[in-house]
């Protein structure tokens, strides 16, 4: 067994209320590392891919990685994986906070849930002791209430829980860790809710050992020095992820009015990280062992959107509930964020679905009657708050929007689908590919649908990070060009995806030198991988997930950008610019080794040690 791992995984059969431990071969750990990469391997090897995502046949996997609980900066992460009820393809969502390291200290590298419980339950894991507890008293409570109740019993417990949205199998439901950290994307809260699994609580005292303590200490010291020197780290600490709002408005990164307007400096000025810091920030907050502390704690003292002190919105939320809705009121964003946190919903998908509803209302496709009397005029935020609740409880129009934007638009009809900005059923995050063409390609090729966190394209294309020592790249890319971007995206995927398998925060991937991360990784695990090995691991991860999606019906026809993203804007930093989709895809397909159908070629699968996948794709 390589070092850094707890050495075992927990398999819980919720249907029978039984559990057992299992192990994973060392060779598989070395090839897949952990996190969502190892989750995909387990999913592929052990489960029926064609299962209904909301059935007991679909496993829910909570996976840490070998660096988690090491104390290395940014290694608080864990990934939750399953077939997505929102998209019907591979689903995964990573999360920071406290849960991952505590699960490792409690004795497990991961937990796999199978089946479905007949009644609400909580899984408790305390220093290797496993219990399934009745959770009838928690069912119906929101994430903040549930967390408070469980921590009231033991303040040292680390909590993972769903809110009402997950219970009601809302397909954009999230899973929350200790109130301020969320696995938001691809609707995995609905999978947890379908299993009647209300919460997972962990507590542990074990310390996974390292292969070489002295070598690790040197790498740790280098990492801390790099964080102290980093302007990106400084900016994230001072302004959170919302530091992007001001900068992105200039470069054409920020979507406005459901992706139809290119510039809005009054919006960005009011919604920006500096504004949040000046007016609403009460303190910064950090995930376990993070010297950056990018999380915000905010409070709104009074007014219609009064909000008690609690976790503040990320940039993505300031986009979906701010610029996307033509809302310049940061207090409304803070309130909407709190409601989504409490009910347990992804703020990207929920905000995007409501922004879509505003556009449908403007165009007369949805009437006030359709909306239960709500006036969803652009920028009118008071009715947004009850609408968030309606989505979480699947009431009225909320029941439709609870399906996610694409499925909701299909249900609404009347041309609504053309107005949805998604790839493979997942709403795009708040980075406009018309300003950054590489991001457009990354959206098309990300294995969970439109995503900014399955790769490092955001960092490399926008110049937040430069790694010429890792692969051939420039310090400064022009966002509004497609030439040369396929190779950048390919390399940025292979490296950036490691954040999810090593379970290290993407911001720390951007901030730290690759050689420092690799040194720490090798010191912890004893694997002694080279950077070439690591990039190959990233390729294997991407290709396996692609193959899973191919087996679920994904082909080249699904690698597309929606109409809005190939329609030029009239103003702003991306005015007149659209990604050259044909060029991007043709170059990328050649580099990635995909055939005309969008399947990995047999020789590529063999090269990556994926012969099992080859056999199933080409049988």
């Amino acid at each position: 067994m390589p070092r850094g791992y707890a050495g075992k995984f927990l398999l819980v059969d919720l249907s029978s209320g039984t559990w057992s431990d299992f192990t994973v071969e060392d060779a598989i750990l070395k090839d897949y590392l952990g996190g969502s990469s190892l989750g995909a391997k387990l999913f592929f090897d052990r489960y029926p891919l064609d299962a209904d995502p909301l059935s007991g046949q679909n496993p829910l996997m909570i996976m840490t990685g070998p660096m988690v609980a090491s104390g290395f900066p940014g290694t608080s992460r864990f990934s939750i994986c399953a077939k997505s009820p929102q998209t019907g393809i591979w689903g995964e969502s990573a999360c920071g906070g406290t849960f991952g390291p505590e699960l490792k200290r409690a004795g497990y590298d991961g937990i796999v849930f199978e089946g479905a419980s007949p009644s609400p339950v909580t899984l408790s894991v305390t220093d290797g002791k496993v219990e399934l507890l009745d959770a009838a008293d928690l069912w119906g409570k929101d994430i903040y209430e549930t967390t408070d109740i469980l921590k009231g019993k033991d303040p040292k417990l680390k909590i993972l829980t769903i809110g009402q949205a997950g219970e009601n199998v809302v397909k954009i439901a999230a899973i929350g860790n200790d109130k301020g950290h969320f696995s938001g994307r691809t609707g995995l809260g609905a999978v947890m809710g379908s299993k009647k699994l209300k919460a997972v609580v962990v507590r542990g005292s074990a310390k996974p050992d390292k292969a070489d303590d002295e070598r690790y200490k040197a790498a740790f010291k280098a990492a801390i020095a790099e964080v102290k020197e980093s302007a990106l780290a400084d900016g994230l600490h001072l302004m959170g992820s919302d530091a992007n709002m001001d900068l992105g408005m200039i470069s054409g990164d920020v979507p406005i009015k459901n992706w139809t307007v290119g510039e809005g400096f009054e919006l960005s000025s009011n919604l920006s990280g500096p504004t949040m810091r000046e007016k609403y920030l009460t303190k910064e907050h950090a995930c376990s062992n993070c010297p950056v502390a990018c999380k915000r704690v905010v409070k709104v003292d009074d007014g219609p959107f009064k909000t008690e002190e609690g976790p503040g919105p990320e940039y993505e939320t300031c986009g979906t509930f701010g610029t996307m809705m033509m809302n310049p009121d940061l207090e409304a964003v803070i309130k909407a964020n709190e409601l989504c946190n409490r009910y347990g919903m992804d703020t990207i998908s929920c905000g995007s679905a409501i922004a879509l509803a505003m556009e449908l209302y403007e165009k007369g496709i949805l009437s006030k009657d359709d909306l239960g009397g709500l006036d969803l005029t652009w920028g009118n935020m008071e009715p947004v708050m009850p609408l968030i609740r309606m989505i979480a409880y699947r009431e009225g129009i909320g029941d439709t929007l609870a399906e996610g934007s694409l499925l909701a638009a299909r249900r609404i009809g009347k041309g609504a689908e053309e107005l949805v900005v998604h790839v493979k059923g997942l709403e795009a995050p708040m980075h406009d590919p018309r300003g950054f063409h590489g991001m457009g390609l990354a959206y098309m090729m990300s294995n969970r649908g439109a995503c900014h966190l399955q790769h490092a394209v955001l960092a490399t294309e926008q110049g937040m990070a430069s790694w010429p020592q890792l692969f051939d790249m420039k310090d400064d890319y022009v966002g509004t060009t497609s030439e040369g971007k396929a190779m950048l995206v390919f390399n940025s995927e292979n490296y950036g995806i490691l954040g999810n398998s090593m379970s290290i925060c993407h911001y720390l991937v951007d901030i730290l030198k690759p050689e420092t991360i690799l040194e720490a990784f090798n010191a912890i695990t004893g694997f002694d991988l080279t950077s070439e090995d690591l990039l190959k691991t990233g390729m294997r991860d991407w290709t396996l997930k692609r193959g899973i999606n191919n087996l679920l019906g994904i082909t080249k026809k699904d690698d597309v950008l929606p109409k809005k993203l190939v329609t030029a804007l009239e103003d702003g930093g991306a005015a007149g610019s659209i990604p050259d989709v044909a060029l991007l895809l043709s170059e990328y397909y050649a580099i990635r080794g995909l055939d005309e159908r969008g399947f990995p070629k047999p020789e590529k699968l063999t090269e990556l040690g994926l012969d099992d996948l080859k056999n199933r794709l080409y049988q």
Partner: protein
Amino acid sequence: MEEGIYMAKVKAMTQEWMDAYKAAIQADPEYRTIAKDWEGSVALICNADPSKGVPEPIYLFQDYWHGDVGEFVVCDKAKAESAKFVMTGDYSRWKQVALKELDATKALLQGKLKMKGDLPYVVRNIKTVNKVIDILGAFETQWPDDPA
């Protein structure tokens, strides 16, 4: 900008260059509006690089106030370090930024330039920063390592 004023090449990071830079900013029709909220001095420190013709560090002090431009001088280290914002970098990085081969914000994020000062203030006023850098291209510069 009035045409034809800055036709001759000006030696980079000299007082003559600072004067030309100041004049170019003052002549820019958009600068005053964009920079109306900016308050405070900026120092640019260029690290020595004898191999590129920069034998000693160069210290430049620029004073900006609500769209007006004040003192623009080559100065000593103490004065530079007294500025509200202090930007430091190697000669080759400054040249890349001036020639628009490297965006200043990206250089900062990648650690190729360092800044002391209120970062949220700079982010809030990033349009002003970009404008001032953009104006660098308004006059011809003779760089120390350019062919004579």
